């Protein structure tokens, strides 16, 4: 077995040599560990950096792009939205409750570190199929962990998405997103400057949990991973609630130079990153760090990922004010060192210097890799689909019911009932519609939030799939009445050292970047999670898009629910019959094949602008994106949410199944009053958006007629029971 010291901390010989070059000597064990965690993929983005440069990251509204703890986008009135998404995949695979809970805890800290009050949590989850106890256990406990943390700290979990596919069986994905609101003038940054200023650690005491979590996140999962539970942190949401309130109270003073949470790589990253950003150094004494365990070595204190801790850089002479505030909230605070001007991170244990390295070299000078990439061989076979050989089912009612029962489409009520989605009393649109909507207190505005990614499209074509994730997220926001503003991305892929995986990564980022450019939604923060593999499988490329949009007036808030009997149902956008990559193909024919649905970004942009115009001018009464399950499922969902039936007619089609269940992009289902139809048509014509009148809201059933034949007729009540109870039935 290869047990060279640098291998033990996850580094290569070349990386070790680079450290020796930087220091002009061999690093000691402590120093080597610092490089191990800081130069891990998780902290350094060494494999992804060159590719991430493709993302558009600036725009009129961007106040803070990538590189800080979270991104910030302006929403007017001197207010801004702070947001970020982060993965906690590997911890959740071995310890689902704590893995998911601390994922939420970590991302919440990233938001209030910027000075913002967190107002919402979202998540994006992927599991294997729910046909085995292990997957059910993971699903149940991840949901409980997210709820346990968010409910206790009192931040509503307002939205998210969940898909089930066997590619995630061994390596589930747990991405958590947090959103905060801040006044422009209150924005804080993670920087340490001014020699002599105090370096304080506040919040929970430090223990041995989460040792080397950053490195654990940067390797594939295998049998040994299950024994690596000590790399998983343990969350204490009550402690974080106190830390949150104490920090926000502290930020109202002018004591603070900079602040950063202790996340991955703990004190090591917080100290070296703040120093590096401030162009300064730092001299800290680990013996001054409050602890909850005895006998901890300096290296353990430096790399511990104990939760609910923050590093605060405080103006010299103001330390006692800080201590006073934290004491009020019953929390530890301790001065552990000073900012210096020598650029070095000096670590002492009492008087003795136990490590001394350039702060920049840890935070910003990790090697950057330009990985090889190669189009994967599987694509040719996966993309070839002979549609003639797919039998068209006889009974379309049965197909629709099977789709409504599919856990990826069925209601996620069983999940979001376990999350407090109303606390803070801002949630104007509850989970279950296209996007969650929160009012902004003290204004007429609201924000809409969503997470999105169809990873099957990404598997079939990562470029188109990546672009579609962005387009669909934006479309969801538009359907709720919001103008999309900005993106936070959660990029989940396999092992980047494999050229086929890296090709997927490059393609996906390239597709997302193009969509972000066309839709004018810059990327303001994000996270990369590689090595989502087990011994046998890699996950589908899963670039999750978290997006925020602005609703100028709460009167414009729109949902998917049909509103009134007699309203006309209209499809905005081109009604192409596409069957590739659909949930229908998977559920009914057991295939995940074909081409990902085509995406014309210019047409998408026109569609979204048109829909928003129709909502803002009060013409449209409901709006719903057509996505998984196609137009039939979209109609069913609007019926169920509105508790109203619909009668819909199609004159003709090539294939009934493709018409009803195909997932062609850039389509929005809207309703208007009869006398609004002409106005809708003229507005759509102005945007060059095709319009198709489908029928009207009517009765107690959803009836869909194709070429004069009734293909679907189901009671809304029956559809609702199937759709609402499916996940619950599987889990109970």
């Amino acid at each position, binding site marked *: 077995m290869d047990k060279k010291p640098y291998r033990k901390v996850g580094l290569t010989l070349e990386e070790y040599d680079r450290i020796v070059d930087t220091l002009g000597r061999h690093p000691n064990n402590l120093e080597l560990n610092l490089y191990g965690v800081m130069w891990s993929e998780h902290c350094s983005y060494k494999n992804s950096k060159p590719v991430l440069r493709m993302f558009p990251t600036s725009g009129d509204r961007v106040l803070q792009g990538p590189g800080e703890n979270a991104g910030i986008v302006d929403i007017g009135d001197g207010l801004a939205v702070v947001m970020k998404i982060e993965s906690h995949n590997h911890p959740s695979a071995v310890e689902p409750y704590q893995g998911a809970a601390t994922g939420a805890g970590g991302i919440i800290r990233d938001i209030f570190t910027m000075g913002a009050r967190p107002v919402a949590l979202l998540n994006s989850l992927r599991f294997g199929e729910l046909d085995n106890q292990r997957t059910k256990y993971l699903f149940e406990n991840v949901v*409980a962990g997210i*709820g*346990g943390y968010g*409910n*206790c*700290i*009192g931040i509503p979990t307002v939205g998210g998405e969940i898909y089930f596919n066997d590619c995630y069986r061994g390596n589930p994905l747990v991405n958590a997103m947090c959103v905060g609101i801040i006044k422009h003038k209150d924005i804080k940054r993670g920087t340490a400057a001014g020699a002599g200023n105090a370096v304080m650690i506040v919040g929970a005491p430090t223990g041995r949990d989460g040792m080397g979590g950053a490195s654990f996140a940067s390797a594939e999962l295998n049998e040994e991973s299950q024994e690596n539970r000590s790399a998983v942190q343990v969350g*204490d*949401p*009550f*402690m974080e*609630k*106190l830390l949150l309130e104490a920090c926000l109270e502290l930020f109202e003073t002018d004591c603070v130079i900079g602040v950063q949470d202790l996340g991955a790589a703990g004190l090591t990253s917080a100290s070296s990153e703040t120093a590096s950003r401030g162009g300064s150094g730092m001299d800290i004494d680990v013996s001054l760090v409050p602890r909850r365990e005895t006998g901890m070595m300096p290296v353990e204190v430096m790399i511990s990922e104990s939760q609910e801790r923050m590093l605060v850089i405080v103006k010299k002479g103001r330390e006692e004010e800080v201590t006073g505030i934290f004491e009020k*909230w*019953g929390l530890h605070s301790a001065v552990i060192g000073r900012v210096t001007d020598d650029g070095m991170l000096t670590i002492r244990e009492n008087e003795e210097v136990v490590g001394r390295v350039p702060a920049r070299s840890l935070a910003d000078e990790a090697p950057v890799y330009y990985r090889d990439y190669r189009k994967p061989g599987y694509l040719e076979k996966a993309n070839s689909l002979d549609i003639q050989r797919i039998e068209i089912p006889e009974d379309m009612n049965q197909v629709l019911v099977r789709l409504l029962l599919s856990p990826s489409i069925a209601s996620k009520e069983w999940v*979001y*009932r*376990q*999350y*407090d*989605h*109303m*606390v*803070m*009393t*801002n*949630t*104007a649109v*509850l989970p279950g519609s296209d996007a969650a909507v929160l*009012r902004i*207190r003290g204004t007429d505005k609201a924000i809409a939030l969503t997470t999105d990614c169809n990873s099957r499209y990404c598997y079939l074509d990562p470029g188109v799939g990546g672009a579609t994730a962005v387009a669909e997220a934006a479309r969801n926001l538009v359907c709720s009445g919001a103008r999309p503003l900005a993106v936070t991305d959660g990029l989940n892929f396999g092992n980047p050292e494999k050229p086929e995986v890296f090709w997927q990564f490059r393609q996906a980022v390239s597709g997302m970047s193009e969509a972000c450019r066309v839709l004018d939604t810059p990327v303001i923060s994000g996270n990369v999670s590689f090595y989502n593999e087990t011994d046998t499988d890699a996950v589908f490329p899963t670039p999750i898009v978290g997006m925020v949009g602005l609703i100028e007036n*709460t009167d414009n808030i729109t949902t998917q629910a049909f509103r009134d009997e007699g309203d006309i149902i209209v499809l905005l956008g081109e009604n192409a019959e596409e069957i590739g990559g659909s949930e229908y193909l998977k559920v009914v024919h057991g295939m995940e094949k074909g081409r990902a649905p085509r995406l014309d970004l210019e047409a998408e942009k026109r569609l979204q602008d048109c829909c928003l115009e129709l909502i803002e001018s009060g013409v449209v009464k409901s709006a719903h994106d057509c996505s998984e399950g196609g137009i039939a499922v979209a109609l069913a969902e609007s019926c169920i949410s509105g508790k109203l039936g619909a009668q819909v007619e199609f004159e003709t089609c090539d294939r009934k199944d493709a018409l009803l269940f195909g997932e062609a992009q850039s389509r929005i289902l809207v309703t208007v009053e009869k006398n609004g139809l002409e106005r809708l048509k003229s507005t759509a014509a102005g945007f060059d958006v095709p319009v198709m009148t489908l029928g009207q809201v009517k009765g107690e059933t959803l009836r869909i007629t194709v070429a004069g034949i009734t293909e679907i007729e189901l009671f809304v009540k029956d559809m609702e029971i199937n759709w609402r109870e499916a996940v619950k039935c599987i889990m109970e």
Partner: protein
Amino acid sequence: MKFGVVIFPGSNCVTDCYYALRDVFGQDTEYIWHRTKDLKYFDCIMLPGGFSYGDYLRCGAIARFSPVMDSIMEFAESGKPVIGICNGFQVLTEAGLLPGVLLRNKDMKFVCDNVHLKVENNKTPYTNLCAGGQVLKVPVAHGDGNYYVDDDTLSEMEKTGQVVFRYSDAYGQITDTANPNGSLGNIAGVCNRKGNVLGMMPHPERCVERLLGGEDGSIIFRSIINYLKGGAVNG
């Protein structure tokens, strides 16, 4: 007329109650820090929801020993209105101001949803503007809302009108399916014998604005204000 909203470490519906009282109902409202002892300026005290002290022990069991609690006991003794919502209800039962206990939900899961409540007693300071048997749609959000009390106390409470709210369907029928947590007799809210101390698991402060999907909670706030103004009480 002054309202106070108590902040225990870990209370998380503090601002929700504060905004409802101040912004929606225009009442003079102040926060009360858990170390405060002097409550003489207040006319009504609200114990909000949340996870006081993390609720790692039994819910409300530690908050009950907060310095402010002695003063709240005195405040309640004097007959002034004290309302505990969700965690606040749990604290009031732990403190012995209200009968019964709140156990883990029957299915062991946290539940956040809109439920219906039937007003069983409309002669309290909290329900005096309600019609008898009126049904309100109010959200719940809790993991430990399964109300339990021994049989003797329960029959006593039934007699004296201490059961104020029960979970019901939209038509006021008390059914098992309308019960979100397994509470004995579908009990959602109770008061003390005098009627001045109320505890309820549902969150009326979450449904006082149409924008947030409902206003049925308003009647509870308006009833309190009516009571404090010396307005007519039913019966």
